[in-house]
């Protein structure tokens, strides 16, 4: 019994760690910047495929790819926001109008990024094996790369949490999430902060992509699946609550794992049932106000 519980809990945390990273990224982009970024999953895909190429062509370890893909995607995300979304935001009459137009724009981004990836990597299914040894934790057996992924996810989340609560920029981000207008009045350079948020969102997606590539096969069209999970987690955690998304990710992973233990066929259904129940009972999410 103890073994079964351990199995389910660690298994859930592994999946949850990935979900948390993805969701924090989207939460930064949507919760703070109001960009419901449908192309979020494409940044995950870019992270995954870059890692694949770096590993299979140049022999660069995926763990080092974390340090490469993260910053590169941050810059890409930052530039996309400074050009595309800032333009849309300035043009929009209200913040709701911006949310609508940014949704459509990110749809466009989705197709652009996906098709560029199809040209570069072709449509074939790809994968590689990395650290796929069996690791034994008190009798429960896991794949090495999954435990590394969990560890990485936890470390990244903690670093990010400290950055958010302790650093000046982190405080500016939280202020912008609370109330962008007041934050701007009080001297926060709102456009810069929003672009940084979008960049950080892309960075988180990229890091998640690197970890995902160690565990799953990939194809250029894999992104949307993760975007949907991210949306569920963001709603679960509470819109605009970055901590909520972090914890929400782990909760969803655990729920999935528990349901899979009893009946694997019901695991995805469980996600959507939770999603719908939450919208009906507490639309603001667990940590939302």
């Amino acid at each position: 019994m103890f073994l079964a519980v351990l199995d389910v809990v660690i298994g859930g945390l592994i999946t949850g760690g990935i979900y948390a990273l993805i969701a924090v990224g989207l939460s930064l982009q949507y919760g703070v910047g109001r960009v419901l970024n449908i192309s979020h999953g494409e940044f995950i895909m870019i992270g995954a495929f870059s890692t694949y190429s770096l590993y299979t062509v140049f022999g660069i370890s995926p763990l080092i790819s974390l340090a490469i893909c993260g910053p590169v995607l941050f810059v890409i995300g930052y530039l996309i926001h400074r050009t595309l979304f800032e333009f849309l935001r300035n043009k929009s009459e209200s913040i709701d109008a911006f949310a609508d137009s940014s949704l459509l724009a990110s749809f466009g981004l989705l197709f652009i990024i996906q098709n560029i990836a199809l040209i570069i990597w072709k449509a074939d299914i790809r994968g590689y094996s990395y650290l796929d040894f069996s690791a034994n934790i008190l009798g429960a057996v896991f794949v090495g790369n999954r435990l590394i992924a969990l560890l990485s996810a936890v470390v990244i989340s903690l670093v990010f949490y400290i950055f958010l609560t302790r650093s000046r920029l982190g405080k500016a981000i939280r202020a912008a999430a609370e109330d962008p207008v007041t934050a701007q009045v009080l001297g926060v350079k709102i456009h810069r902060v929003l672009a940084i948020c979008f960049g950080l969102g892309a960075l988180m997606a990229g890091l998640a992509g690197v970890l995902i590539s160690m565990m799953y096969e990939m194809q250029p069209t894999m992104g949307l699946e993760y975007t949907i999970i991210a949306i569920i987690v963001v709603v679960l955690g509470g819109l605009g609550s970055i901590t909520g998304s972090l914890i929400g990710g782990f909760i969803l992973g655990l729920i999935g794992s528990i349901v899979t233990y009893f009946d694997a066929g019901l695991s995805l259904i469980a996600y959507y049932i939770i999603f719908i129940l939450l919208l009906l009972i507490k639309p603001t999410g667990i940590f939302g106000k």
Partner: protein
Amino acid sequence: MLVGNEVLNTCVKLAEGKEVKMRKKRLLTSLSHFSLVFGIASMLLMVGWAMPTQIQAASAKAPDKILFGNPIALSGMDAAGAMMTQIRSYDLWKETVNAQGGIYVKEYGKKIPVEIIRYDDKSDVGTAVKLTEKLLLQDKVHFILPPWGTASHFAIAPVITKYKSPVVAITVSSEKIREMAPKVPYMFIVLNQPREQGQALVDLCVELGIKSAAVIHHTDLHGIECAGAVLPQLVVSGVDVALYKSYPMGAKDLSPLLKKVKAANVDALLVFSYPPGTFLITGQAKAIGLNPKLLYLTVGVAFPSYRDTFSAKTVEGIMGAGTWNPKVSPAAKKWFDRYVKRWGEEPDRWGTAGGYATVQIMQKAIEIAGTLDPVKVRNVIASETFDTVLSPVKFEGQFNPNYPGEVGQWQNGEFEVVDKAKRTAKPIYPKPAWE
């Protein structure tokens, strides 16, 4: 007002003058047109007397190109499968045919090059249907090359039947389409179907002396049908099915399920899966040390990328659905080399050669029919035997009963055919330990 009238009058006069000039000019041009047309016509007549009547008719209406319309996924979920199984095969075929000058059409007495008009259906069934109609009605293509996937084939079947346009399909696998077939006589299917594959798998289990098995399947129609076809046959053959479970598409962690399989300690694990599940289960089974004597998974095992992801040593002894390999015939080996040279990737060991076979069949049928008339071409497809890189194909009730293999097994980096009737190598049993 007065000024206005003057201006108007001047305009009218000018216009009349111009009119007279133009009339003269028109007369001149029509005279010269007439003489030109007369000249060409008499030249044609003279040439006509010298030419056999058949060629006369031919050069009159032969199209510049034989147009094949291909609505298929270039983006979206189906793009990976479409690229691997169909698009590269179609394009390689087009290049090969055109390098030889095209397809010989007797009706026109000459070879006509081939062109493929391809649209992205965005992995959407509705779009595939609309594009099929657009290709037939607006682009006036001569034939259709189908989209990717079972659902799209179900969707376009009534359309191609309505317009009487034959389609030879590869990526469709469903027992339901067998029931539907008589109503859609223009659809022909080259791929082997769950029934034959299930039978071959069960026969193999019996031959190898499997006593107990676990059956896992994904919850799409494909998984349900395959598992449903195999389960009763296993039971009838005296195999004890200790575990029968499903998992959803998009599952990210199946280790709890696999640990149950491990606990059940069965001889065989039979998994009816799509590529994401196939890759996930292989990796996780290895990690938790689940190593049944026979491990069979469905779609994806035959992909070279499956072998390359896990390494040839890791996948040694794993069985999967398929199958075709370069060893099935000398023609197959030649085509395999040509394919690798052209695309820099190996074809998969299941449908890619079949994809190429579908267009070879279209080509041969046009040549035999000697016409681009779709109904006549359809009748040839239905009745003739076709030599292809896959194997000889002769349709029985719109299905190809002679796929070169049903069950494959990775042995030394090649996906060998191991089912009892068609094997290219003896099955390795029990599966070696994970490396």
